[in-house]
């Protein structure tokens, strides 16, 4: 699974993108976020407030219950502030 981080999520995790292999019980966006929070202090900090977080799966906005799988591109970013 490919993970992408944008804006201050990238600053806090320290990386722009990475390949990960979550444990098999991670099947939804919510479960993925919960697992990411356990991966170290940078991740815990970046994912401390899930209400400030938006998730896209394969470049489509996703909800907490949406499925994620090994071939997916999952992006984490704050609410957009463009234009």
């Amino acid at each position, binding site marked *: 699974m490919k993970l*992408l981080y*944008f*804006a*201050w999520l990238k*600053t806090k995790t320290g990386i722009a993108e990475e390949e990960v292999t979550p444990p098999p019980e991670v099947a939804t966006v919510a479960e993925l976020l919960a697992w990411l929070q356990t991966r170290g202090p940078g991740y815990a900090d970046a994912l401390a407030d899930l209400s400030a977080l*938006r*998730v*896209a799966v394969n*470049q*489509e*906005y*996703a*909800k907490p219950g949406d499925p994620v799988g090994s071939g997916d591109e999952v*992006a984490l*970013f*704050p*609410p*957009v*502030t*463009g*234009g």
Partner: protein
Amino acid sequence: MIRVQQDDFDVGAEIAALSAGNHAVGGVAVFIGVVRDLAGAAAIGAMTLEHYPGMTESMLERIEAEAKDRWPLEASLIIHRYGRLEPGERIVLVATASAHRQAAFEACEFLVDWLKTKAPFWKLEESAAGAKWVEARVSDDQAAARWHAPSGARDSDAAE
């Protein structure tokens, strides 16, 4: 047509190309977003716009297609820049051409409101106090909410 690019654009040439050869166009509404040097009280040196390559383009194409569904447009154009931009520099151009001015104005404002609230761009502002990621403003969400169809059928792409 949509373009996401680092370079500046030629406003006059882009607008002229939009209605060139199409004599059904009666009016072109245009919005040009510019980097301000004031956000609240703090002077800003410059800003950097980050985006999500791929998702940005597909969302802009979808927004443009929705505008063409909702209004009788002859042509439309969205250009959005990313990267580091100084105060006074252009960020975004939205232009809509229609036989009727009302359709052109409404579609243009609709697109600008969507860009401000849905397109995956993030603003890093530089000031004397350092660089800071801009937080989303409630007023922008409210401006975009004006356009929501009661059914909400086309809002499945939005998580918020």
